[in-house]
């Protein structure tokens, strides 16, 4: 980050004036609005840092995401019903919900303690969905994000159980698989993703992954120093990005155990099961060949 672009803004390292100007017409990469060259191949990955300790549960991210990505309402199946168990009426990430604010309500000394967290696709460094996609519809973009190309996806549905976080989902209306694109179209146009732009508290930060990782760890250290012993960073090799996933490009600062937010603490990359499973199957096949050879020789 050089200083000739004026003052570096507080948290995400992105000049907010440029981000919020939808009419910005400069060529992508020219003004280098993120402190990274957007279209060159040497781009460092960009992503999110979502901080549960700052989230106020306003759902502006959900609304902004739906609005920008023109996602359909997702409670049509339940006839726009409320869940009835919390302020969380979107329940889960899905084909038409790419940001989901979880409302964790737990008993505390003063009654109820609320933890809120805006969940999103993790844009894994090694992504299960991308590994599994047999059509090439799921790609790694120049921003390091993982995107499903809707014109290629044929709705085989393999990416759905191949995601350790339960992110992609088949749409009942068009049959294809859908998930967060990290607002690929906005990034190409030099804008930050809609959710990060809409977040009023700075709970959702957008920026270069390496910077966000440092910021996240720093935030956790600060919180711990303030006495919040439950603070933890989710998205590195130890937690969230474990088991061959190699870290997450969308990270989280949590103030509770990951499972309270329905996040797996130590997920595994499903692709790693191919080798042991295929090797054992080959051994079994060799066993059948040996048995056949033995049996037929004896009877010949």
């Amino acid at each position, binding site marked *: 980050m050089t200083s000739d672009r004026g003052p570096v803004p507080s948290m995400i390292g992105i000049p907010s004036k440029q981000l919020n100007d939808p009419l910005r017409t400069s060529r992508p990469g020219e003004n280098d609005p993120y402190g990274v060259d957007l279209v060159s191949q040497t781009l460092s990955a960009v992503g999110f840092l979502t901080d549960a300790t700052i989230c106020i549960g306003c759902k502006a991210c959900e609304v902004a995401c739906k609005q920008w990505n023109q996602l359909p309402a997702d409670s049509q199946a339940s006839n726009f019903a409320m869940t009835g168990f919390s302020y969380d009426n979107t329940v889960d990430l899905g084909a038409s919900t790419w940001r989901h604010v979880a409302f964790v309500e737990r008993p505390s000394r003063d009654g109820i303690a609320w933890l809120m967290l805006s969940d999103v696709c993790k844009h894994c460094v090694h992504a299960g969905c991308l590994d599994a996609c047999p059509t090439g519809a799921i790609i790694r973009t120049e921003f390091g994000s993982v995107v499903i190309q809707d014109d290629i996806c*044929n709705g085989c549905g393999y990416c759905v159980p191949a995601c350790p976080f339960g992110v992609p989902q088949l749409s009942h209306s068009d049959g294809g698989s859908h998930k967060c694109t990290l607002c690929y179209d906005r990034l190409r146009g030099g804008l930050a993703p809609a959710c990060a732009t809409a977040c009023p508290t700075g709970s959702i930060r957008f920026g270069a992954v390496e910077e966000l990782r440092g910021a996240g760890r720093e935030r956790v250290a600060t919180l711990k120093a303030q006495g919040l012993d439950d603070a933890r960073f989710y998205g590195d090799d130890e937690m969230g990005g474990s088991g061959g996933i190699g870290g997450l490009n969308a990270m989280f600062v949590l103030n509770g155990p990951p499972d309270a937010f329905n996040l797996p603490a130590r997920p595994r990359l499903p692709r790693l099961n191919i080798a042991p499973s295929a090797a054992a199957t080959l051994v079994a096949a060799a066993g059948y060949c040996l048995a056949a050879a033995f049996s037929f020789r004896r009877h010949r």
Partner: protein
Amino acid sequence: MTPQERARSTISHVQPSQRGYYDIPVIHGPHWKWLIIGYFYFGGIAGASAVIAAFLRLLGGKSGAPLARIATYISFLALVPCPVLLILDLGRPTRFFHMLRTFRVTSPMSIGTWGLTTFGGISALATGLQLLDDRLACSRERPGGVWRGVGTGLSLLGGLSGFFVAGYTGVLLAATAVPLWSKRPALLGPLFLSSAMTSGAAAISAVAWISQCKESGAHEQLRALETLSTVTEASLLVTWIMALGSTAKPIAEGHLGAVARHGAVGAGMALPLTIGALSPYLPQRLRRPAAVLSAALTLAGVFAVRYAVVMGGRQSADDPSATFDMTG
């Protein structure tokens, strides 16, 4: 109040959680149901029958030829519904050919698509050659040396690609985040291969018995293979369920538990093995119906295995505690 005190009084004294979030699944389960169960079933029979056809042709000598003929036709007939089932299962069936625009080694489904396509081509050629052979046999002409060579080559390729088609589906399921499928990957692949081999052997022997194909030495070997495969499948299934521990819940309890215990193990494995063991003591006229019944039970048992594994995976994915048990 200092910031530290404020933080402590508001957030940090939250109770240690009961695990999870309103019992909402952590991962998304697959949409696969009957069409994919059907594909696993018919694909298994098709692949395994090609393998057995190769065994019979390459190792079985003269007595293997009539059974190899049956195996080749069964393999092709079982293969025909497979692409239809797979395409109908897609969310966007008209785009099925998008599977053929790329090859991805990290995706068992991509490798499987190419393997199944290869197998389909080989199977069609082998079936064509078999039809030709049948015609020539009627006109009492024996095919020449070149045709023999082609036949042997096709058998070998058919056997190899047949093994692939029979076995990759277990690997495909293991390479997901579904706890039931992914916890013991080294057992699920062999289980799928052996249940395919069991169903292939049973299908061939059923047709052989019904068509009153003259008994030969190869019959005995096919029976031996069927028995061996059923025993292997049963031990793999039991080992797999035991190795899964609490993750096996969907297929150890409830509706699917009953299907696995009574359908797969009881009716599909134990009963046919018993019938097989008793058949030498049966009167001659009862042996044929007994053998057909045994093969039919075996085929139904393999279907029960596929059904329990696929539907159990769906239940397993919907159980957040199963996922948390595996991911700490």
